[in-house]
């Protein structure tokens, strides 16, 4: 075993995760190079320091802050589960707005002012004129017929 291999295996030896053959090889190297034993002790000491170091605690306000965020999440959840994706309040406002727009439109667009009704009135007038003309033609034809029969009687 060379120095690099020894260094690579320090943690394995401390954590006892070597097989027997490797362990014997490692311990043989340590016995032959006692000056390197200090390195193993230093690593073991560093591990102990870390494993026994007191851990940091979250601040006192941590739990309250977390709870506030969860409450806010739940509130949003309730809001989004209203009617058709709107909150109840927003849904009422929306319905009222649509109703107002409809009423306003109905008020502003009077039937007498609409082009549709004007066009309709024009067509009615045209129909009346046509009917009047038809009646006049029929009267003339009738008169002609009468005159004709009068002429033929005379003949």
């Amino acid at each position, binding site marked *: 075993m060379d120095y690099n291999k020894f260094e690579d295996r320090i*943690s394995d030896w401390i954590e006892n995760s070597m097989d027997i053959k490797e362990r014997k090889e490692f311990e043989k190297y340590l016995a032959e190079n006692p000056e390197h034993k200090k390195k193993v002790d230093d690593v073991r000491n*560093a591990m102990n*320091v*870390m494993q026994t170091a007191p*851990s*940091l605690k*979250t601040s006192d306000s941590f739990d309250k802050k*977390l709870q506030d965020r969860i409450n806010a*999440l739940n509130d949003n959840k309730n809001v989004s589960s209203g009617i058709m994706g709107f909150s109840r309040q927003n849904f009422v406002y929306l319905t009222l707005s649509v109703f107002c727009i409809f009423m306003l439109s109905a008020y502003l667009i009077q039937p007498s002012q609409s082009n549709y009704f004007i066009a309709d009135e024009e067509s009615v007038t045209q129909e009346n004129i046509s009917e009047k003309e038809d009646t006049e033609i029929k009267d003339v034809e009738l008169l002609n017929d009468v005159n004709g029969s009068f002429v033929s009687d005379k003949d």
Partner: protein
Amino acid sequence: MNDKFKYSDEKLILRFQEGDINAYNELVKRYKDRLLNFVLRYFNNVEQAEDVVQDTLIKLYTHASYYKNVAKFSTWIFTIAKNNALTELRKNKRKKTDSLWTEDGQIIDINSKEESLDSKVQNEIAIDQLNKFLDEIPENFRMAVVLRDFQELSYEEISKILEIPIGTIKSRINRGRIQLAEKMKHFKE
């Protein structure tokens, strides 16, 4: 680690998935400090680290259904914390400051010798000094060492959390410990 608890972490997350809010609260209680100690290694700033832990625990609340009982809960939650921390780091480029934290979470100036000397010592090394040494070793070594020696996770779990092969993790932990031991040795001398 969970032997002292009535329910394992995995049992608790299953209960929370079924709607038991007390199970969630218990998981928060068990993990908030552990996550803080882990995330702190990315930021060196308690407030920012606490925010990341909060985000992690909120994700646990909103995405509990994503947990599948094939992995250990600790692996899952530490992975979320790591990803949140990395996202936060990407957002704000890491600011190197000359500050450290004491064991009660207060930021102190390392130039303030009085504070450092007053802080508790363990195995002849002050905890704030240990944190400073940890900050001095490369990040990929540091995260592996922290998960192993502070959080006491298995190599397999660390490998999953950091998404690195187990052999590389073992090597990084060993190298990290050696570097840390070197710094501690010089400090004592």
